[in-house]
């Protein structure tokens, strides 16, 4: 069984006057070590999908299975365990802890997952190029820097699934490339990496590209022009 299995997933939001089908009968499986880019216009259901995989939300129909565990059978504590030890999130809106410094936010990732590796929060922060921002609070960081801290926090957990919602959205070209390299290297360490983007360029470095439109998968496969190296990207 694949690491991530979505079978016949629908997510329907009913706000009273309007019903939104954010996801419509999505079936999907992702293996360990796969680097997947999810493409699609804004509002097509990308974040919704990540939330379902991350056990943050429950589908209206269908089942989500993570590491062989059917999320719909999970209670509160088993879902917490999945979030703690299986998936890690880079949120589109960062969601850093305003009361913790950059390094402490990363440390939180280490602490919460119980990751006992030699790698320290400072090391991870250095990986995203923020070694000299470690004592800054989130409100003292630029949007791009906040985003990198959010990425570092997710990396620090070393969980087998990494979910990144528009991780390069706020980043300039050079920094964006650096982050993408980092993400690719995570996949090379046998993690499943799911990156959501609306940027077609990024899709070129993926093992697999999934295109969403109005909540449905309209294509799923390797990049059309073949997989490229991060260094060859232009945007």
């Amino acid at each position, binding site marked *: 069984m694949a690491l991530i299995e979505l079978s016949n997933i629908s997510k329907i939001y009913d706000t009273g006057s309007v019903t939104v089908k954010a996801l419509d009968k999505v079936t999907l499986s992702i293996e360990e070590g796969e680097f997947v880019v999810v493409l699609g216009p804004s509002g097509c259901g990308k974040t919704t999908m990540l939330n379902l995989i991350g056990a*943050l*939300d429950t589908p209206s129909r269908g089942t989500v299975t993570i590491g062989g565990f059917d999320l719909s059978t999970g209670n509160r504590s088993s879902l917490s365990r999945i979030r*703690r030890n299986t998936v*890690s999130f880079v*949120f589109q*809106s960062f969601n850093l802890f305003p009361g913790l410094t950059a390094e402490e936010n990363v440390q939180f990732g280490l602490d*919460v997952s119980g990751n006992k590796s030699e790698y320290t929060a400072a090391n991870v922060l250095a990986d995203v190029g923020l070694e000299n921002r470690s004592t800054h609070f989130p*409100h003292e960081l630029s949007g791009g820097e906040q985003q990198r801290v959010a990425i570092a926090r997710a990396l620090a957990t070393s969980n087998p699934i990494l979910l990144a919602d528009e991780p390069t959205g706020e980043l300039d070209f050079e920094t964006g490339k650096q982050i993408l390299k980092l993400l690719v290297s995570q996949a090379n360490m046998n993690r499943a990496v799911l990156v959501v983007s609306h940027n077609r360029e990024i899709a070129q470095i993926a093992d697999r590209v999934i295109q969403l439109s109005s909540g449905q998968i309209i294509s799923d496969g390797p990049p059309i022009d073949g997989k490229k190296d991060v260094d060859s990207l232009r945007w």
Partner: protein
Amino acid sequence: MSYRALWVKWILRDLRSRWIQVILISFVIAIGTGTYSGLSSTTSWRLKSNDASFSKTNMHDFKVYSQTGNLFQEGKIREVLAPLVKNGLITGIEERLSLPTQIKAEGINGAIIAPGLLVGIDKSKGASQIDKLHLTEGDWGSYDTGSKIDYAVLDHTFAETNGIPNSSIIELPGNKKIKVSGTGLTPQHFIPINDSGLGFGGVFAIVYMPLEKVQHIRNQEGKTSESLITISDPENPENLKTELKLLLQQSFPNYGIGIEGKKEDRVYKLLYEGADADQKFYHVIGIAILLGAVFAAFNLTVRVVQSQRREIGIGMAMGASLLGLAARPIILGINISILGTIFGIFVGKLINGAMRNVLMQELPLPIWLTPFEPKYFLWVGIGGFLAPIIATLVPVIFGLNIQPVEAIRTGHLAPIRKGLSPLLSRLPLPGNTFWQMPFRNLLRTPRRTFLTMLGIAGVIGVMTSVLGMVDSFTLTLDKATSESSIKESPRIEVVFNSFQPVDAAIFTYLKDKQGVSKIQPVIQFAGTAKNKKANNSDIEINLLTTIIDFQNTMWRPTLVSGKYPEEPNEILISSAAAKSLEVTSGDQVLVNHPIITVQGSPGFLETQFTISGIHPHPFRAYSYMVPSQTKKSGMYGLAGGVWIQTDQSADLDNIQTDLYSIAGVSSVRESGINDRAMKEELKGQMDILKIVQFIVLFLALLIAFNTASINMDDRAREHATIMAFGLPVSKIMLMSIIESATLGLLASIAGLGIGFLLLDYFINTVFASALPEIGMYLAVSTATYATTIILGVFAVGIAPIFAIRKLTKADIPSSLRILE
């Protein structure tokens, strides 16, 4: 949709999402304003009720009596004062015979033997006209021709406290059986009082009977002990008083004529001064609760509005009108204000009701007027109304004053500004990041933490002071009982009608009496003392002086400092007296004490005494001198009473009753009876404290809960992020509890400090003036310290649990989506 309609919708939406907080905050205000007005009203009630009760019973303006205890021939005073009646200066004279007595009765808790007063009331005009008896139940009894039994009206408080029903039989000395035909009150005894000047409700019995019955029972035919007088110009009694005194002294030389004005009456004074002292006490408690509550409500409102600061910034960035931006928070504030006022009146009425019950129980006046007093609500009501509105303005003005970019950037989650916060928030803390979070949260907004803590601390402080007050009462009572009692068996104190030579037959008789192991003749008299230094001479206190042989084997006071008197003109006083007079061992005081002159007539003399030492009994008046003093005061070889120590096996009640039947014995009582009276007195205070304690605890919980609930809202996104990382709700709850409990701990510690200050004020200022005759000891027990800390930590700590729904029902994806 028009612009205005949009704002209206927005405002309504605010209210809908905040209504629980709006209600809870308005409740905090309501408890503050309601408690204050509820407690404050009592003073006005007491004054009104005093006025009405004294006027309804037509209280005398003057009481004429003999300081030496001589009795008057009935009608004699009326005769002497006839000219003044004729010219209209005196409007009424009524004679009474009041004599000390003992009563035996069967109450719900068994037999009672109590000292008391037998009061004969002149009913020759049908009913008494001055100091009228107010019947609370029954009547004077109907004397059928030939009926053997006499009837009496028993003091209301005594009957009620001891559960003595109407038509039960009570017994006066000499096996005199009397049927209780009713219960009632007269103004001189609205509060039953004995020589110690303490309220003696339930311990001291007043028995009312027709004058001629009392004269007959006590073999004092045609005698009266006092005359009650009303005058035409009660506002200016002084001249008439002088005139009366001259007139009566001429007619009754050697009587030591005393004329006591209405305002000098001890009960009258106690009732009005008590109302005054209550005023201070309730004011301080009420104000402390009010301040704590309004302050807390202010903080909470600020916090609610602060969460809109970012929106204000965005609005400013888009050029929205200031009025529009301010309208949302201000309307929220107005809502809190209106609800707070409505609830406040409600809480005020509730507390009024509780206080009304306690007061009516403690002070059985004939008339109780307890209307809702809007004036006490008015000012605090206005304050309580304005506080939330001002509270909403503060963050709005702050918000409008800063650059919009700042407001947008910071958001409400990280209001880190200048001052301590940057330093504190970097304070290195041990442990995991998530165990650090509670402390980081407290440290990153030190001012908010401090203000929240202060609000809770104020409330906890009131509670500590209330607990401390109970501790102090208890310690004071303990001091009294341990000082008064003899280890093996109680001491009976017998007072004679008049001085007896120490070799009189009665002493031999008592010594040989069955059950008596030891006797000790004593002299006890009332006097006053003041500091010898001129500047302090205005402080004058009452003394109840006992002359005893300090080497006696029965009992003697203990010493806290100095030594026992050895020479005449040395006196042992209480520590409370020393405090009032601002003196210590070795200092001089001027004592005004009775003497018996060579001619045998009593009088008073001011003599300089040296304070030899100080004893710990809380009754300020208790003081002691050596037997050789009697040589100086003409009392040598005499005794005014005797102390009796009984065998351990002796039946105390029987001995007491026997003693009463001995001719010349005027009162018999157990040595600890005054302590019991003090207990009764303090019990009334404790009842009120219980109400206060309850309010305060509730208020602390409410504030803590509000704070926790707002915290939960503020941190919804943070919590959602934590949950996304897989920390379970229980752990987040634990983090919140740790944060709250830490806040509670800080608040408890500060509260202890505030509580101690309040307690000190209550004991040393308020009680010192309310119950001057009791020297209160100040104590804060370990239990109080522990209770305060535990309750503070616990009550505040558990508050987040009540907001757990906010976590379990949290919509994680939605919370995470919001970009801030």
